[in-house]
């Protein structure tokens, strides 16, 4: 395992600041103020876009290129997890269940078949 480095610590400090700023965003200042209309509407779409942008390459790319998706444990696991979530979305354990289903598909394919 590598050494703890200052750069990662800087990232952690920066992210802590992001946590404080985003959670307190509209009550940092005493003054009442509003975001411009487009930014307010954008708040609806940015979080899901950010998450999708982070996970999509992790699901389909191998060393920067799209590999054989049919023989990829990650793809099947992701499909299974998403399918489970939308099937059981009103269930209180839907999130955790989706992750469990995904891992249940992922681990055998990865460990036994080396996909």
């Amino acid at each position, binding site marked *: 395992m590598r050494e703890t480095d200052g750069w990662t610590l800087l990232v952690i400090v920066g992210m802590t600041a992001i946590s404080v700023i985003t959670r307190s965003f509209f009550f940092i200042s005493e003054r009442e103020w509003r975001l411009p209309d487009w930014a307010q509407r954008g708040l609806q779409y940015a979080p899901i876009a950010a998450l999708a*942008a982070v996970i999509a390459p992790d699901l389909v790319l191998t060393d920067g290129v799209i590999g054989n998706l049919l023989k990829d444990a*990650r793809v099947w696991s992701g499909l299974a997890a998403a399918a489970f*979530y939308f099937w059981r979305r009103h269930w209180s354990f839907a999130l955790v269940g989706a*992750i469990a289903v995904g891992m249940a598909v992922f681990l055998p394919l990865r460990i036994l078949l080396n996909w």
Partner: protein
Amino acid sequence: MNMPLPPDQRDDLSAPGRLGNWVAGRIEAFAHTARHPLFWVGAREMSGISVGLTAWSFMTGVAMVKSGMTLTEAVLMSLLVFAGSAQLAVIPLLAAGAPLWVILAAAFCVNLRFVVFSLHLREYFMFLPRAKRLWLGYFTGDVTYVLYTRRFPKPAETERQRRAQMAYLWGGNCCNWVFWQTFSMLGIFLGAALPERWGLEFTGTLALLAVTCSLAATRLRAFSALVSAAAAVVLFSLPYRLNIVAAIAVAVALCLFIEPKLQPPSGGRGGPRCVKPMAGRCW
């Protein structure tokens, strides 16, 4: 536990003395809050949900340590950042050596839902001085926000109501924090012991995938996710993981462009924006 109180030293002006006084004051204030019956109501209501979230915090711990972070880094990140989806989202960026601003931009975007909550919480928190507002805001996560605003649909007006509301919220926040950190630490230390070959860091990706699905409450949001995913893959060769920032920009811009065309002409402002199930009110 009944501890003997130290003699009052308010007139001691040495630095350690003042620090001690300050800490004692904070502890007294906390004990005052914790003695309020609503503190324990808040904690109890949160605990039911916290049990469901333990798997989540455990996996965040596993994913952090499996991505190559050291134990110190993972522990510090969990204790300080205290934002599961943002932590999970930056793990691949950290591992790929993305520049600081890209990592912070991604964390900021993932956390934007809190910005929405903070607009709502403003009227509840404005009576506090700024430092306390920020402190309280930092500890108020998604679930405690939802429980709090569900139990108190209106901001407090009297001192008594304020105390009750703060006690309830801190009860939930403390419960959430203790559960989250405990299981996150378990994940970090047990995760470090599990074999590399299992690819357990993949739980982090799956966890984010599940959150993404849960956010897809409207067709336009699902569209935003698909556009962003496709763009992030196509633009993957951009340096510094700029594909993340570019994909978010493309997806949000496209949604903003399409949104007015999907709204019924008479419906005006209330249309597809009013669907966020978590936010206590429409805006």
